[in-house]
């Protein structure tokens, strides 16, 4: 009975639970309601993904109005894969993070935090299913405002100034995007993405259209933290509560990248002459620089979470590199890496949340001897680290493998790209090893010597659920490394639809 309404229910379930959660005063009830809503959204995402496998796309007319007049939702392979990433990351982070959040948040404000969490989930999911340019802007604002609240929740005062910088840059990015779709709307007269693609032919090479493409790309690059515009990301992820970072690191920037790719490949690429070259020409150097600078800075970073944040910037560089090859295999690698990176980075940040429950801080020397006190969690941390590097047998390896094969199709340029990929993988080995080495072999860090950190070796705060969730994510890393059925298939058909028949 509900099957045709699934794309809509995907957004409505977290949307209607969010105001409800604000009223749940008793402790832990808000968390339970939020987790239940997130798991329902995850279930809907799985059903959607399965029903979209054979190159099918689901469309839904909100309010019953026809496409260009009313707003239309469209779930294709790319959208379904992203839905899996978003709802999966949210469910895992919520399930594993109850204890860690209880310590980070004042009890009276917990309902607001979980309501903001569901609103962020609604925003991301709303963007993934929407097929209307302005609707994407509205849900981008919902997800941004909610993630500012999530990041500013922590006890650390540096989170406030980091979030203010993120608010300014995020809103400037969203407004650039708004100017871009305003100019496109002025020239084509429509906001529906499919209708826009059809009507752009006539006005392809006019000046406003080229400027609109520029505005949209810069705005979304700001939101997706692509290399020169990523300045807000490290501090925002480092000083946020650990569970927030686990959720946002897995999906916040990918959603903006998703919108950028859909806009560029579905609308601007086919029709703007030379835009394919522009897209590759401008964004490939940025991707390469992002990979090198991100991995480089991560190697010398003292703070564990900032280290992982800079590695996120490098991983986004990989995705952009795959996309800027403008070929089916390149796009296939980029989309697959979105899925694999969410698994690896989400697992790593959850492990940091587990460590923080026991250690006094998360600088490298403060997590000394953690391997002995929490062997299971540390083992899962290592598995996720290997997947981040791309060791064969893990999910990360697959996306790196497809990236390398896609790059090789480009001859001399391809060889250079492959060298960049190998160099940055070596850098990744370096900084993962630094984390492992300081965790295993550094002397047991006794908290008394460090003045400003509070000794809190209370194992009670250590949630029983966190190691099991961690191991589920670690095993998922391994499973999708070996028998990579569903995401591989989805990524392949997504790449085909995006390029629309190009070789």
């Amino acid at each position, binding site marked *: 009975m509900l099957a045709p309404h699934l794309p809509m229910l995907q957004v409505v379930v977290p949307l209607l639970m969010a105001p409800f959660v*604000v009223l749940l005063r008793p402790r832990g009830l808000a968390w339970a309601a939020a987790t239940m809503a997130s798991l329902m959204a995850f279930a809907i995402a799985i059903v959607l993904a399965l029903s979209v496998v054979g190159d099918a796309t689901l469309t839904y007319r909100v309010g*019953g109005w026809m496409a260009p007049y009313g707003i239309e939702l469209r779930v294709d392979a790319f959208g379904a894969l992203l839905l899996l990433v978003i709802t999966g990351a949210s469910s895992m982070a919520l399930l594993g993070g109850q204890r860690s959040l209880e310590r980070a948040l004042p009890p009276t404000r917990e309902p607001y935090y979980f309501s903001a969490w569901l609103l962020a989930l609604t925003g991301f999911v709303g963007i993934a299913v929407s097929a209307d340019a302005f609707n994407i802007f509205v849900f981008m604002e*919902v997800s941004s405002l909610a993630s500012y609240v999530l990041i500013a*929740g922590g006890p650390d005062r540096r989170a406030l100034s980091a979030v203010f910088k993120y608010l300014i840059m995020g809103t400037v990015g969203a407004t650039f995007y708004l100017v871009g779709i305003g100019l496109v709307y*002025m*020239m084509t007269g*429509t906001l529906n993405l499919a209708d826009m693609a059809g009507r752009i032919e006539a006005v392809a090479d006019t000046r406003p259209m*080229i400027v609109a493409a520029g505005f949209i790309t810069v705005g979304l690059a700001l939101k997706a933290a692509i290399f020169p515009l990523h300045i807000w990301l490290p501090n925002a992820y480092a000083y946020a509560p650990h569970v927030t970072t686990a959720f946002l690191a897995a999906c916040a920037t990918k959603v903006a990248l998703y919108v950028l790719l859909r806009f560029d490949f579905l609308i601007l690429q086919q029709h703007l002459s030379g835009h394919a070259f522009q897209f590759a020409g401008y964004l490939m150097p940025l991707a390469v620089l992002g990979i090198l600078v991100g991995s480089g800075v991560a190697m010398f970073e003292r703070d564990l979470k900032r280290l992982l944040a800079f590695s996120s910037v490098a991983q986004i560089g990989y995705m952009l590199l795959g996309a800027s090859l403008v070929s089916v295999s390149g796009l296939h690698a980029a989309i697959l890496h979105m899925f694999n990176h969410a698994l690896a980075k989400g697992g790593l940040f959850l492990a940091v949340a587990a460590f923080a429950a026991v250690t006094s801080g998360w600088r490298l020397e403060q997590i000394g001897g953690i391997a002995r006190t929490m062997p299971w969690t540390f083992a899962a941390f290592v598995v996720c680290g290997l997947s981040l590097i791309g060791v064969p047998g893990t999910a990360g390896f697959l996306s790196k493998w497809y990236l390398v094969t896609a790059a090789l199709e480009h001859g001399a340029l391809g060889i250079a790209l492959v060298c960049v990929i190998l160099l940055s993988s070596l850098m990744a080995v370096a900084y993962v090893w630094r984390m492992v080495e300081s965790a295993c072999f550094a002397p047991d860090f006794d908290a008394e010597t460090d003045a400003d950190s509070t000794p809190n070796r209370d194992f009670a705060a250590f949630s029983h659920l966190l190691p099991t969730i961690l191991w589920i994510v670690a095993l998922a890393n391994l499973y999708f490394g070996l028998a990579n059925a569903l995401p591989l298939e989805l990524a392949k058909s997504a790449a085909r639809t995006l390029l629309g028949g190009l070789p």
Partner: protein
Amino acid sequence: MSTITLLFSIFLLTLLMITTMAIVRTRNLFVAVMLMGIASLLIAASFFLLDAADVALTEAAVGAGISTVLFLGALALTSERERSPSSLPLLSLGIVAIVALIVIYATFDQPPLGSPSAPVQAHLTPWYIESTRELIDIPNVVTAVLASFRGYDTLGEVIVVFTAGVGVLFLLGTGASASAAGAPLSEDNAGLRHYLIPRILGRLLIPFILLLGFYVQFHGEYSPGGGFQAGAIVAASIILYSLLEGEQRALLVIPQGVLLAMMVGGVLLYGAVGVAGLVLGGNFLDYSVLDSDPVKGQQWGILLIEIGIGITVAGVLISIFHAFASRGAA
């Protein structure tokens, strides 16, 4: 566009440019906020000239009214003057000038102002105006498009307002703590105690302002108005009452619990109307299934969600004001 009104709008926009230059240049933040009030009025007047009556009403009610009050509330708690000078002004001036030239470069190929052949006028507009008369049958096409054709956008919009309310309450606390401490309604913090005349006049006028707010709410289908504007006007009147009579008494009029219920209730009402459309066989947010006669159903749907918007916007804006005001008192 007749040349006379074009000249008026050009004059207003020149004034606007001068005001924005003054806003950015002045070092005193209070002056900047006052000039922003003027800039908002100027923009609203030029919207009125460009045939956007609904947007002029919203820009005035939200831009000139609520945003000035919020900025002043924040200024009261922070420093009023900028201390440090601009950082690397020349470089940023250069970047800004380049981007401005790009935008001006983009404006040369655009369809001339108001030309009927422009795609904006030709593609969707005739269908909207035609089907509003035929399917929804209400005079105000903007409300019809806002509430029914693109109702999902407006639902996202109400969620944005709700997120801002949740965010501010999360960051600043509900402010109930201050009044819950049972601070006696002492004379010193009972509003503007010097101003006898304004308090008398305030008591006389506030009921009429609320009445105006409800009029704008329910008259949204026939003349410029609707949920957002009505919520802003109702919030403005409660804020005026709080300014005149003191924050504690305003909290007695609408306590914090009711505000929270308004915030949540409005969004749930909007969602419930959408889900009702789903349950009764149509798509989500499809109002024609709400009543036997589809046109009546559409009108019912639009009326209900406008009420939902009004409740949420009023609840959010008043609780944001209380959060700012209580932060000052605490």
